[in-house]
């Protein structure tokens, strides 16, 4: 049963009867008037909204799902390289080891020092970035990730000890893209950081769990205690 008030409001909407509070600027009023047009034929389109002067003021287009991260520059460069440029650079390529993580890099990973979560409106606290430690050789780690990624239907770009994985057949939620980097923490101790670059967070979470399954042979300790337990159980099952 619609209340009288609701009927009244609906009638106002239908007749485009509304008024602006006094502090609304001229630009805002004119745009809103064009939006609140009951006639869909004369109503402003999204394209036209984007062209509106008032709308354009200080407007920065939102990039859905993309995570800003300066560290991805190198990895992006791998993807952007044209074949020519890549071949040329290969010749000048001097092999350097994985970047070193010093004590302060490690400390900075602590949850207590990452205030970004204060702004995280998601209540489920799903992590966008995950890491594990491996005691295998750095090159071996790269090879194993490469193999796992291909099995999971991802395209792999590698430069130095940075990798970018891209889903070959994007699902309903769009294409998932992941950045991976291997750091040396101490001799024979490598920290592998896996980070979502683009795509749906839940898809990423699923991806990470699958990846860890494939990589369980090289994961020595993961940041997630639950992962460790799972790995241990899986390894036990294999021996039997």
């Amino acid at each position, binding site marked *: 049963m619609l209340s009288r008030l609701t009927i009244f409001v609906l009638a106002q909407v239908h007749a485009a009867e509304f008024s602006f509070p006094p*502090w*609304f*600027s001229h630009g*805002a009023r004119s745009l809103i008037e064009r939006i609140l047009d009951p006639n869909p034929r004369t109503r402003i389109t999204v394209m036209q909204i984007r062209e509106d002067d008032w709308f354009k*003021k200080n407007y920065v287009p*939102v990039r859905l799902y993309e995570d*800003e991260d300066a*560290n991805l520059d190198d990895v992006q460069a791998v993807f952007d390289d044209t074949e020519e440029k890549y071949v040329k650079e290969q010749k000048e390529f001097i092999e350097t080891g994985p970047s*070193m993580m*010093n*004590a*302060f*890099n*490690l*400390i*900075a*990973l*602590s*949850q*207590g*020092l*990452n*205030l*970004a*979560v*204060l*702004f995280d*409106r998601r209540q489920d*606290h799903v992590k966008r970035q995950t890491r594990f*430690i491996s005691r295998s050789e750095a090159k071996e780690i790269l090879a194993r990730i490469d193999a796992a990624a291909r099995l999971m239907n991802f395209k792999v770009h590698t430069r130095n000890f940075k990798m970018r994985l891209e889903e070959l057949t994007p699902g309903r939620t769009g294409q998932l893209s992941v950045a991976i980097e291997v750091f040396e*923490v*101490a*001799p024979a*101790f490598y920290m592998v950081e896996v980070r979502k670059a683009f795509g749906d967070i839940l898809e990423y979470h699923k991806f990470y769990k699958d990846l860890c399954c494939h990589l369980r042979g090289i994961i020595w*300790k993961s*940041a*997630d*205690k639950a992962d*460790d337990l799972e790995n241990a159980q899986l390894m036990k099952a294999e021996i039997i």
Partner: protein
Amino acid sequence: MWQCLDHVSLGFHHMLDFLLGCCQTKGRKYSRDIEDPETIAHDTSFSVSEVEALYELFKKISSAVIDDGLINKEEFKLALFKNNKKESLFADRVFDLFDIKHNNVLDFGEFARALSVFHPNASVEDKIEFAFQLYDFKQQGFIERSEVKRMVVATLAEAGMNLSDDVIENIIDKTFEEADTKHDGKIDKEEWRSLVQRHPSLLKNMTLPYLKDITTSFPSFVFHSRVEDS
């Protein structure tokens, strides 16, 4: 006589107006203890709209346990870990650094001013300074090796990763080799500054890109906004 009373009551009303005027300005929805957003914007890297949006976040965090317009340590940990029982060396240190007045609670002024350092537009010098103070637990003006070890162990323990003492010593050795250019077993501000210049990633957690988008994350600030729509 009635005229006399009229004058008295008029006087009384004027006095009330005067008293109320001190505490409220027209249209302001903030309690009288909240600092003027314009003052905060002036002192920080935030715009007035950003300060107002930040206030929405502050209200959310500060009302979680006790609705008193202040963030206590429990509410801070709740916001950071979604768990108010978690013991954290770092959360305690961050809270202490935010708490300029040293009264174990954060008012909005302290909250906004501290977060200002994390704004992408804040100066790198401020970030270097804040990070240094963060790691200088004992506030001695230098970072001791024992403090670094304590922090590394705490970080690894938090992640459930317990590396052997040898490995940890090795990590710290290498760090000090590079950072401690004066070879005195401590890292002073100068050494810290040059370390950070060589490894900018060390300041990564000193910048919160979200602060730039805060007006879109907390759009309800417009209901209380004093900013003229232009």
